[in-house]
């Protein structure tokens, strides 16, 4: 079996990311210890959350409430840490909160046949309302100690944050899961065609719920990862962040229609979206320019997904003067 390196979308993205990092480190303080450290610190939760969103998007669904779910996780973790409960307990507790809330989204989506975009949009509002109404001080927790922040601020060799190592292993694990397990294939199948998935004996409803549960688990990790870098947390910390995660996945080649994409692509997408925003900071752009430019980049990225590198294919056509659709004809 021949194996050649093809210019897949993921490879192209990896090259762009590499070039980006090279330029940034040549022109800014990006190559200093603190530059690298803060880069890795910022990117880790984004990568984990973008993978979380990718799982749901693979099945053809979406979760607009990911950011507010993470808010609940951060609140839970902070509250527990405030009471002196250690990381090994509050991390799983936070993950559990993530699983429960995302699982609820999945359950409603499947059970009542409401499109997930509607369910999670509504949930997003419910969550925000909940913060303000039911949490004391809208969920603000201040002056968290070493007990809380040791994970977020801890680093190996004075440069690699603990969170980055965790994000690295999460990425590897999910690359493996999507490629080598039944669960991974079922996600692609349901996103590709529910009908066909059913005919292959895959239960679409259960698969979608599983995707949401797994998403919640990862959102829990991501939220704790981010929250523990700070000494004060509040649930509103992540409001609106889901758009960032979704765009990372889309830029990384995950199709919004489901069934297509790779975890490696998502990771590269997260890196690229992040690098873009910091390079704009370096260039001195203001916040709203960043947003506008990011929006345009997402449009461009999704356009390329939809057209599936058709520009490349056309040039291939010209050389051989053969129409790709005819390939199977003479076989």
């Amino acid at each position, binding site marked *: 079996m021949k194996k050649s390196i093809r210019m897949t979308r993921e490879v192209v993205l990896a090259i762009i990311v590499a070039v980006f990092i090279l330029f940034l480190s040549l022109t800014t303080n990006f190559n200093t210890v603190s530059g690298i450290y803060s880069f890795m610190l910022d990117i880790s939760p984004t990568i984990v959350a973008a993978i979380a969103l990718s799982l749901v998007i693979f099945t053809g669904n979406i979760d607009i409430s990911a950011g507010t779910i993470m808010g609940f996780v951060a609140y839970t973790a902070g509250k527990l840490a405030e009471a002196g409960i250690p990381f090994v307990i509050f991390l799983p507790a936070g993950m559990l909160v993530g699983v429960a809330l995302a699982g609820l989204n999945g359950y409603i989506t499947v059970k009542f046949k409401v499109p997930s975009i509607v369910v999670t949009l509504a949930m997003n509002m419910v969550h925000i309302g909940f913060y303000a109404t039911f949490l004391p001080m809208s969920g603000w927790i201040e002056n968290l100690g070493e007990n809380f922040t040791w994970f977020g601020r801890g680093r190996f060799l004075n440069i690699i944050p603990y969170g980055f190592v965790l994000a690295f292993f999460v990425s590897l694990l999910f690359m493996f899961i999507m490629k080598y397990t039944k669960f991974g294939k079922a996600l692609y199948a349901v996103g590709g065609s529910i009908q066909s998935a059913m005919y292959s004996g*895959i239960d679409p409803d259960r698969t979608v719920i599983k995707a949401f549960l797994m998403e919640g688990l990862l959102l829990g990790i991501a939220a704790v990862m981010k929250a523990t870098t700070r000494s004060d947390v509040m649930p509103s910390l992540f409001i609106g962040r889901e758009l960032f995660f979704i765009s990372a996945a889309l830029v990384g080649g995950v199709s919004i229609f489901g069934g297509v994409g790779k975890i490696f692509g998502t990771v590269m997408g997260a890196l690229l979206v992040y690098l873009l925003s910091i390079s704009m900071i370096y260039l001195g752009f203001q916040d709203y320019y960043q947003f506008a430019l990011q929006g345009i980049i997402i449009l461009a990225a999704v356009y390329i997904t939809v057209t599936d590198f058709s520009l490349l294919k056309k040039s291939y056509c010209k050389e051989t003067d053969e*129409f790709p659709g005819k390939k199977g004809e003479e076989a």
Partner: protein
Amino acid sequence: MEKQPILDICGIDKRFPGVLALKDVSLQLLPGEVHAICGENGAGKSTLMKIIAGVYVADTGSILLDGQELHLENPNDAYKQGLSIIFQESSLFPDLTVLENLFMGHEEQKSLFPVLPFIRMNDIPKMRKRAKEIFIRLEMNVDLDEKISALGVATKQMVEIAKALTFDSKVLILDEPTAALTNKEVHTLFETIRRLKQEGVSILYISHRLEEIFQIADRVSVLRDGAYVATADVSDVSKPKLISWMVGRFLENLYPKEDVEIGETVFEVKELWQRGLLHGISFSLGKGEILGIAGLAGAGRTELALAVCGLSKADKGELLLNGKKLVIHQYRDALDKGIAYISEDRQRYGLVLPMTLKENITHKVLNRICNVFGIIDRRKENSITDSYMSQLSIKAPDGSFVVSKLSGGNQQKVSVAKSLAAEPQILILDEPTRGVDVGAKSELHRIISNLAKAGKSIIIISSDLPEILGMSDRVMVMKNGCKAGELLRAELTQERILEMAL
């Protein structure tokens, strides 16, 4: 013939809200036979299949597989019992590879760590090996790492058959397998079916195409309006007999083409080029003439039609309408000049399925039925709809009926009505009777013939050779994007067309 049937279907009833889809259907499939099931659209073939497959559950009756009663919860149960179904609509995942598709839902697994046997991963080398064994059995050669979307229709179908074999199926059910295949591909498929039969696999073969049933099947059963009509050995039954079972009466003529005096040339295409698709096609069309365009799938017939109507862009070429040069940038221009195209894929391109009959029929002529404020005149809308409904005898309660609920034949008629409403001078019909039952087919042909008689010029693109032979005044044969030749009605034979097309 006193063999124990491998699949014994007894007294199946299935009721859907408002309709009895199947009543008391019984069938026996013998080991190693190819058993065809035929019937018009809506006869209940697909419902029966879906019950056998476990997609629907029958209200009454039982299915015995090898003497054992089958209880199916979902399609996967059916596969596990050794019953594989290849549905009409592809159940492959276009974005996944061949290998992933073959084992989707039942991947071979192994444990990741010997000490932790419950953590399991997919055993890709083992799946590869099994896939290759199956490919050898089927004498097919497909790259396992190729994406499904890169394969041709016929290859996709072979992959579906291979997928069925990954379950070691004893019974294979094929639903309209040849609907999208060219004659050559059908031939390959039949070879495969014969090979499987020799291996002892029993096959239920569902098809409209009677010719195929006579070629491939050992026995044939007919369903009509959800009821079982008859079963016979293929060697004992004639085609008209079969049709009469299906329709419930004898059809006098499937191709009621009337002789029409062909008028002056109204439409001419000169040297039409489209890179990689069309290579200098020229033809002309007279008033009242029916021009058939024959050729294999991929010969460029649909592409020609699209280029002529402005639905795709030609690189070079000239169109003349009534001797005047015609410039078409987009389909709207073609419609305005009186050229209408009826797509082969009526569900996707021809109709808006969730909308009503009248909305569909008047879609192309909204300008004409609106007042100055852009408000639709209900009376005009209804009168146009009613006139076409009676003209084409569309069977629907009224104009506000939703198109998706109509049968395939009636949908096709709506699709034709939609184009006729634009009052075209030239009508291009792409596979006008694909997936349409015999009764509706005959009716559609009568409609086409009447249109020609009324002075319209018609182009029929069809893979159904008898249709081309029966309906055309003249036939243009295409091959690999080129014009392979032209035949007049007098010199038309199936052999001559094939000779040119191959």
